[in-house]
């Protein structure tokens, strides 16, 4: 856990602190301004494939490009320590209990990277973006569909089965909660960012508070979990005839559990595994 988490976690995980779900944030001018700027500029700003933005991608001169990367990194560095974190399904359930209102909207990354305006996999849960989303119809194409807590849990369970990684996001300037993303590599700007650029990008997306471990004796080497992993953390060893989990790459999303008929995979708290305790 970083200083930011401890400061805003109230002794718990930051996403389970009810204070961060408060409507009070709407009274803060800086938060409202940041939310509107986000809704206006997300696609052309660094959201797409951090630390890239549209302007930088048009620079084919490597010298200018390098300078832009440095500038962008400093820009990100001045913001809060992390914007998003991977959350497994059990924590998703806990969050939804605290959350309200909940709505589904079209996914920003699918818009940017796949020109798909239909699939509504972004689940907004905080008041901040839902309040202003309606004012930016180009961002919330297809509308803002409000759903109940039960529907939200059911939807998240379906996404989990399908193989989408759940990530939970906060506002870029404050600990205000924004919502869930459900995505995959390479369509998710955040997940692809982590896979492309590695661990230094953890100010953008953090790994979960958990890490996957498998029961070596129970594993029958079927290999079904391998294709479930969106972080390329699992490989199949033909020599051992078992799946191997690279715990340093594991983001702790828990999706591999859906594929394991033996029930051999479980999530353990990251803090209990010394080698990955400080890897976020």
């Amino acid at each position: 856990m970083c200083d930011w988490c401890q400061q805003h976690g109230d002794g718990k995980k930051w996403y389970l602190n009810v204070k961060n779900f408060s409507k009070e944030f709407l009274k803060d001018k800086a938060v409202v301004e940041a939310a509107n700027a986000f809704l206006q500029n997300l696609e052309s700003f660094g959201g797409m494939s951090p630390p890239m933005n549209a302007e930088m991608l048009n620079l084919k001169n490597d010298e200018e490009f390098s300078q832009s990367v440095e500038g962008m990194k400093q820009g990100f560095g001045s913001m809060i320590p992390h914007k998003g974190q991977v959350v497994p399904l059990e924590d998703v359930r806990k969050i939804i209990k605290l959350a309200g209102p909940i709505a589904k909207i079209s996914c920003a990354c699918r818009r940017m990277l796949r020109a798909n305006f239909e699939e509504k996999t972004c689940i907004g849960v905080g008041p901040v973006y839902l309040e202003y989303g309606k004012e930016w119809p180009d961002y919330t194409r297809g509308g803002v569909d409000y759903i109940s807590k039960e529907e939200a849990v059911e939807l998240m369970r379906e996404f989990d089965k399908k193989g989408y990684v759940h990530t939970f996001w906060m506002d870029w300037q404050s600990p205000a909660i924004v919502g869930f993303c459900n995505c995959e590599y390479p369509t998710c700007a955040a997940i692809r960012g982590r896979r492309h650029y590695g661990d230094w990008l953890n100010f953008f997306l953090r790994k979960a508070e958990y890490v996957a471990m498998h029961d070596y004796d129970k594993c029958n080497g079927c290999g079904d979990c391998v294709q479930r992993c969106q972080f390329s953390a699992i490989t199949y060893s033909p020599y051992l005839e078992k799946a191997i989990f690279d715990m340093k790459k594991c983001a702790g999303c828990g999706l591999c559990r859906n594929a394991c008929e033996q029930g051999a995979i479980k999530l353990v708290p990251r803090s209990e595994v010394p080698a990955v305790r400080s890897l976020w």
Partner: protein
Amino acid sequence: MSMERLRELAIPERTVTVQIDKTKCVGPFECGKCLKNCPAAVFITYPKNRVRGEICDDWDIVADDLFCWGCGVCIEVCPKNAITISELKK
């Protein structure tokens, strides 16, 4: 910034460049086949000017070619032959 610094940030060297001929391209709304089919999701579309309360219909397409594998799927699917991939000579 030196090459070493780029390596430290895991930013790869650009080996291929993807050019989109904007005079031929019909845009992400009417077509968008390059975006939908690219296995590396290299193409990115974004609104040129988004105004509060309005739908923006003018979205531009750029290519994040640092991560392009040069497989050529986009060239195959583009109905207007607007895309070219060229290798950058060292």
